[in-house]
């Protein structure tokens, strides 16, 4: 196993920067999830690490070697592809044996390793089958096995579960997690499903438009998103973002809405908004941190219900507030109806404040 370092990594296609100055370190044995919306450069980044795409500038270190100019086969990596990329004409056994054959291992050693991998992944009975005779989950396991037999320094996985149905995805998710724990493998895992990232990864790297936005543990990314993009991308339903303005009332700092209401701030939050570059501030709040009241209470703000989505455990209420839609979760026994007038109370401790101009999170020093 080995650590991986990306330093100022850039990949351009013509004038278009698909990967823009990405720097991050994956420690030995760490599971890192690369997340971001479609087209943000996740696959490109992974291909750069794999050596399938030449880098424009920057450095990639795997173990203690700079691998910028090495062929994929010399980088000591294994890759799992989105569509599994199994060799259709070869049996499962030959699929697993292929990377070892290419490395000219002796036949009996290949046999031993293939059988061992098949045992670990519980597919000894499938060895003679062709890929097309396997289910999606089984194919996925073969793809994993083909990476596993090699005992590489780093595993690279590009959306390996996206072709599976929801149930199988949950099952394979825990299998991959086990696989990581048992092998203490270094894994870089691309996904656009943030739930996958949050549940499996030690750290997540959030990308957008080729830029690395935030690189931290899922809990940290969730609790302290560095900017509005990360805030709205991580978490489901998405964090509500309400554009407001700073003003003073009765000698204190408050946030006012174009709708006329204003929201008082705790001293700590006042400290935060003083850092804003302009008067524009965006208030962020996750659904679980907002309280819904049927009548006005001190500090609450009037809103109007837009939709109600009961899911069984919780009911999600969407409300219009200052031109934005706010998600609130309430216990299922609370009955609200669309167009009903409600009052929302924000948790001063757990609210997020962003600079309306730079979209960066505002922090108390």
């Amino acid at each position, binding site marked *: 196993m080995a650590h991986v370092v990306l330093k100022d990594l850039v990949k351009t296609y013509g004038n278009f920067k698909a990967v823009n100055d990405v720097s991050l370190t994956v420690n030995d044995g760490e599971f890192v999830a690369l997340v971001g919306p479609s087209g943000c450069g996740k696959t490109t980044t992974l291909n750069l690490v794999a050596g399938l795409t030449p880098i424009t500038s920057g450095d990639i270190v795997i173990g203690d070697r700079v691998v910028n100019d090495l062929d994929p086969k010399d980088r000591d990596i294994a890759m799992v592809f989105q569509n599994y*990329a199994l060799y259709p004409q070869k049996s499962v056994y030959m699929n697993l044996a292929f990377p070892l054959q290419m490395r000219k291992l002796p036949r009996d050693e290949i046999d031993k390793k293939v059988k061992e991998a098949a045992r670990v992944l519980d597919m000894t009975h499938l060895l003679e089958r062709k890929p097309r005779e396997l289910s999606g989950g089984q194919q996925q396991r073969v793809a994993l096995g*083909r990476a596993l037999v090699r005992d590489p320094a780093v595993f690279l996985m590009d959306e390996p579960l996206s072709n599976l149905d929801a149930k199988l995805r949950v099952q394979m998710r825990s299998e991959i997690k086990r696989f990581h724990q048992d092998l203490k493998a270094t894994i870089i895992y691309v996904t656009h499903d943030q739930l996958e990232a949050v549940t499996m990864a030690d750290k997540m790297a959030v990308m957008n438009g080729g830029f690395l936005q935030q690189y931290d543990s899922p809990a940290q990314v969730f609790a302290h998103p560095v900017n509005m993009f990360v805030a709205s991308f991580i978490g489901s339903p998405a964090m509500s973002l309400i554009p407001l303005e700073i003003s003073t009332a009765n000698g204190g700092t408050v946030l006012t809405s174009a709708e006329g209401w204003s929201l008082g701030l705790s001293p700590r939050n006042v400290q935060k908004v003083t850092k804003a570059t302009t008067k524009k501030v965006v208030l962020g709040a996750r659904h679980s941190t907002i309280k819904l009241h049927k009548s006005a209470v001190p500090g609450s703000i009037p809103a109007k219900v837009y939709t109600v989505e009961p899911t069984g455990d919780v009911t999600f209420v969407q409300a219009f507030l200052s031109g934005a839609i706010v998600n609130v979760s309430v216990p299922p026994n609370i009955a609200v109806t669309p167009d009903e007038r409600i009052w929302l109370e924000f948790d001063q401790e757990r609210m997020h404040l962003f600079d309306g101009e730079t979209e960066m999170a505002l922090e108390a020093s």
Partner: protein
Amino acid sequence: MTIVTGKAEARRKLQPGRSGVLRNIWAHRADYAYVLPAIAVMLVVIAYPIYYTIELSFYKTPPGLQLRDKTFIGFDNYTTILTSEVFWKVTWNTLVWTFGSTFISFVLGFATALALHRDFIGRGVLRAILIIPWVISAVAASYIWKWIYHSDFGIIGAVLVGLGLTDRPPNFIDNVSTVLPSLIVVNIWREFPFAMIMMMAGLQTVPDQLLRAAKVDGANAWQRFWHVTFPHLRNVSVVTILLLAVANFNSFIIPWIMTAGGPSNASHIWITHIYELAFGRQRWGVASAYSVLLFLILMTLGYFYVRALSGNERKEGGA
């Protein structure tokens, strides 16, 4: 609309245990009525000639006499053919011609397809140039090559003499031992672009992800070709080879225009031989018997062609 009705009707009428081809046809009579005109036309333009050829092959047709003066001679035409020396000579020529042209055209076409598959400057132009032999008329090509090969004015001869490799221009197509290879060269020149196009289309369907997986697995360029590209192209290769083989077996224009089978039958293949027997020497009976044999051989090839095609579908459907 009516076809749908026909089917629904068929479903209603087909009681379990009361089936049978005729009953089935009757139940689908509306459907059959629609294809009846097409079947009638096909009977006239395809089935009848085939029948007439088979019939003629059992008759002696004296040259210079009316066809109605023919006399029934059973399998005599077939024995005449199978015991004649020319038959074996022509069959051998046909095999050399068919397999030589098919094999080399395929390999050459595949190789060019692979070369043109990579990106380089001028690829489009080169591809267009390479397709030219296939799109120009075979008749024109034959005359052009006749001149290229010409023993007095041919460019190949002139170049060879100019380089001092030979004293006299070689005689390509008036020589018993070089005529067939020379014609095969022309044929290959004309048809390898077809193989090239087929294989280029096939190459575009090789999944990129598989090639990249093989790269990560440590396969070099040759191994990637052998383990990924080539297996993927198996079906398109089979189809291409069969189409080439059938076309070559049926070749007429190039050998007929360039040499008409000569010198001394050295470049006669089945088709040109049949043509000469029938329309040159009016030996309709023998020519028909030849045609029947040819028909049987081509049907066999056709069977494999259809099987290769439907095998393809089965696999895709199962994947």
